[in-house]
């Protein structure tokens, strides 16, 4: 369960260097959403439908897919595995909904993972160029349109990258490596 916020930041000293802007492109710390990993057999139509009823969104079935409701997003993390994100204020409500849902299906379970990721935004004309220095993922429009999300290596980090606008991305990395993530992205934006 998400706890009340503290003054501690996983970005440590590097957090003081953010936001950072170079030539109109900015890296900034993003709010940490409540996060839950939901697993269940999506071939079970009744489960899939129940999830849609409870959460207000259809669980993503394909790599790169995101489903959205008014307040909640679901990323495809793996076969039958979704990452649900919601504003931190709704953590308890989402948790309760998931408990209700998973109690009905033996194959389903959920785990809160809010604490496991730290989030940054990257926005501006050289945002894609900056990411191209760090990831081997195809970031062209046809392969990574606005609204898509992928799990990818960002430098040595396992990260989630969501394209949230023409030149805007939301990036999540492991909380323990948030300082490294910030250092690496600042370097990529500033270098050359």
């Amino acid at each position, binding site marked *: *369960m*998400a*706890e*009340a*916020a*503290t003054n*501690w930041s*996983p970005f*440590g000293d590097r957090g003081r260097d953010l936001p950072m802007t170079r030539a109109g492109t900015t890296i900034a710390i993003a709010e*940490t959403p409540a996060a839950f*990993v939901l*697993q269940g057999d999506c071939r079970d139509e009744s489960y899939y439908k129940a999830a849609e009823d409870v959460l207000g969104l259809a669980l993503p079935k394909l790599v790169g897919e995101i489903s959205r409701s008014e307040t909640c997003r679901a990323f495809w993390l793996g076969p039958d595995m979704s990452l649900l994100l919601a504003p931190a204020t709704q953590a308890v409500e989402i948790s309760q909904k998931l408990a209700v849902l998973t109690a009905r299906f*033996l*194959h389903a*379970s959920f*785990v*809160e*993972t*809010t*604490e*496991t*990721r730290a989030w940054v935004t990257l926005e501006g004309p050289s945002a894609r160029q900056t990411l*191209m*220095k760090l*990831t*081997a*993922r*195809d*970031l*062209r429009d046809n*392969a990574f349109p606005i609204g898509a999300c992928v799990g990818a290596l960002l*430098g*040595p*980090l396992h990260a989630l990258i969501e394209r949230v606008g023409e030149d805007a991305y939301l990036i999540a990395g*492991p*909380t*323990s*490596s948030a*300082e*490294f993530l910030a*250092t*690496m992205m600042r*370097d*990529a934006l500033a*270098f*050359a």
Partner: protein
Amino acid sequence: MKNRRLSTGGRIDRSRPLSFKFGRRAYTGFAGDTVASALLANGVDVIGRSFKRHRPRGLLSLGIEEPNAVLNIGRGRNGQPNRIASEVPLTSGLEAWPTRGWPSPQFDLAAILGTWPAPLAAGFYYKTFMGPGLPRALLGGRDAWNGLWEPVLRRMAGQGTAPDGIDPDAYEHMNIYVDVAVVGAGLAGLAAADTAALGGASVAIVERDTVPGGRTLSAARQPMIDGRSADAWASDTFAAVASNPGAYALLRTTAFGLYDQGYLAAVELPSDGKTAGRIWHIRARKIVLATGVMERPMVFPGNDRPGVMLAGAMESAIARYAVKPGDRAVIFANHRGLDGLEAAFADADIHVAARVVIDEAVTGVQASRGRLLSVDIAPVRGGAPDMTQRRRVSADIMATSGGWTPALQLHVMTGGRQRWDETLGCFLADGSGQDGILIAGAAAGKFTASSALADGVTKGADAAGIEAGIVPPVQDFARPPEGQGIPIAAMTNGNARKRAFVDMQHDVTVADLELAAREGFTAIEHAKRYTTAGMATDQGRTAQVATAAVVAAATGRTIGDVGVSGLRPPVTPVPFGALGGRRVGPLFDLVRKTPTHARQEALGAVFEDVGQWKRARYYPRRGESMRDAVARECAAVRAKAGALDVSTLGKIDVQGPDAVEFMNRIYTNRMDTLKPGRCRYGLMLKDDGMVFDDGVVARITADHYHLTTTSGNAAAVMDWLEDWLQTEWPHLRVRLTSVTEQWAGVAVAGPDARRIVSQLAPEADLSNEALPHLAWIDAEISTGQARIYRVSFSGEMGFEINVPWRQGQALWDAVTAAGAVPYGTEAMHVLRAEKGFIVVGHETDGTVTPHDLGMGWIVSAKKADFIGKRGLARPALIAKGRKQLVGLEPEDASVVLDEGAQIIADPDALPPALMLGHVTSSYWSEAMGRGIAMALVKDGAEQHGERLWAWSLGQAHPVRVRDTVFYDAEGAQMHG
């Protein structure tokens, strides 16, 4: 030195003179020069010494194939070894250093080796340096090779000097995706890129030169394309390609590796010395290799003398760099396609003293101080030179051409093969290799400008999946070397063969290859390895065909039957700095920090790397040594209470109706009997029965477990569990989630631990009855919600408090404020060793079973199966003679044994002594007042009470073997 710069012509910018140094001497060149062309213009004939024989060497070529002019560029931390002089653009203030030659390349004391060719023949090292049979004591305990010869040869050989500091240059990496990638911006490459781009494909074109155009840049007579000179057409077309949206047009960028599935790696090395270098990771649907050709030198006695250059290099020197390489030339070729060279010589007013083509051969040269004086020429009759008709012609330069070899290195790297084409006299791609790779232009045997251009258009259209367009009209001025023969001059004299160099970078001669064939190394890959032909940094670019030709002749086969050897990336040397990119300094490796990291830093912690985690090892106070600090921390835990950050432990959430079955299969002990609210120590084995990992399993509910792993092994354990679940037991309804960073943890250990934890969680019942050893509860503590595990890795009463990660620092503050003394991982190790607790990676190394560790008690005999059960039943794992874990007490209590010390029975035994085992953990124990250790010892369980010796670094200490539990064997402290 003679100034050889022509007063007009060339592609140099005479308005921008550039000063540079070669060795200790200063020279001047111009913008547009390479280091090679500038040295040539300054009359520097001898640029280095050869690898084995230290023969004087000059420039052979002015391209990437250059085998001799491999220089150090810059010095000290700015130094770059292995740079090909012809590939380094001249810049102001550049310093270049010869790779070999002492005191100078012109006068090299080691040249004595060149007068002594016989002992340096193929296989010399293998045959010679096994002896002499000197006593090892004289050789530092090593054999003759390691103790004597290798150190000597290392000093004499080598390919330059490594930089002596951190590379000041900065590099980055860039990942791009395109529809079509084209390697080479010669005529074919440009035509392919332009056609593909016009067809709507996104295109990347990479060119190692500073300007597009390929061989036309060096041509004395430019072909005309579409009414323009070829270089104008090339420049316009390159710009047109670059202007397309999503296009990448990269100069000074060398494609050095081609890998699976259209992955091309290229290195961009800017020439201005200011901007960054860059590795380009290019992924393309189709790749067009328009890599051109390399000219082959003729092989004849003395062919390595300075002044002997490739015909194309001479033409380039004159046409591109405005350098007149000499005054009087001999031309020696196995074909007649030398119109360009003849035109260049005419332009530069170079007299051609002799044209030795096909019916004649050069049988020797005379040189003085490295410079060519004259050339011996004889007619060839019946395949041999007629020495009775030999004539001597004075000349200061010789242009040789043994034909052209398509540059197919990238094709070969993808598994593509080559076939010998009798008509063209060269190896061509045989159609094998990966899908999606097309070869165009001269690399495909299209040697004329018109055929290369047409082929480029065709391959570009193929790559883009469109119909081929119109080929621009081309007017050629020079004949290509079609009908070229074998580039080996006829030779009769055996000694002459010892001076006829096939691979100049590694000093491999015709005689070497013939010797290899006589000794049975007849396969091309064997001959390569025996003689090292093709194994230098140039990968034998100028040597491949000649090597095949010599081996073919020596074994009675054809060149096609012999073939050429394989090639590996990189095509050309790539700076390590470029490969590293931005993964240097603070970005060298991923760093993981716990939420208490800032607090540990403030306490002055000395950190250690555990996996990628930074963990506080100990907290030295002013004036304390590590041993003092660790002893103080241990004493605090034993006397009162200590706090250890255990956030790094791997944590995995296991849920599902089949979770019980899954856990029972994963661990050696039973997890079905574990009740909700309780914990159990568990051991995982690999399927061979060897210990893989350990940790604590907590049962949350009937179908829900939470398990911990060792800090460094968390990802491996997660992979292991998923592997079994997904591939072997997909029917088990179990879900795994890594929650390592969901939970931060602080261990509170010591007699005072309960009081401290109670202070944080006043509402929680922490009594032995409510929370006994190996139980857990959820509780509200001062920082918020927490989960408290009653576990101990110290032998004292212990609690591990887990809170959400972002609460970790607050938890640490609360625990230490309540009186727990911070202790680090070193104290943790001492405390656990005193209790005989193992650490995976210390007491185990992938060859150790639970029984070896004396932990047979954790292997369930009742379970039907678990991973490793059948492995453990193998006879060898239960036979006598296995190494078993024991405790050791040095007889001298003040001694702390070296970890890794070898256990022996007799300290006076001569090497090789029988090794009985080794020390796995060793510490100073403040609680025991002595050094303690654990060791894996042969039949250790039967050796308790025996006296053995622990040997390390020349010292042997007597030790007494005992059980592994040094402290509180009854466990009274732990259970409270």
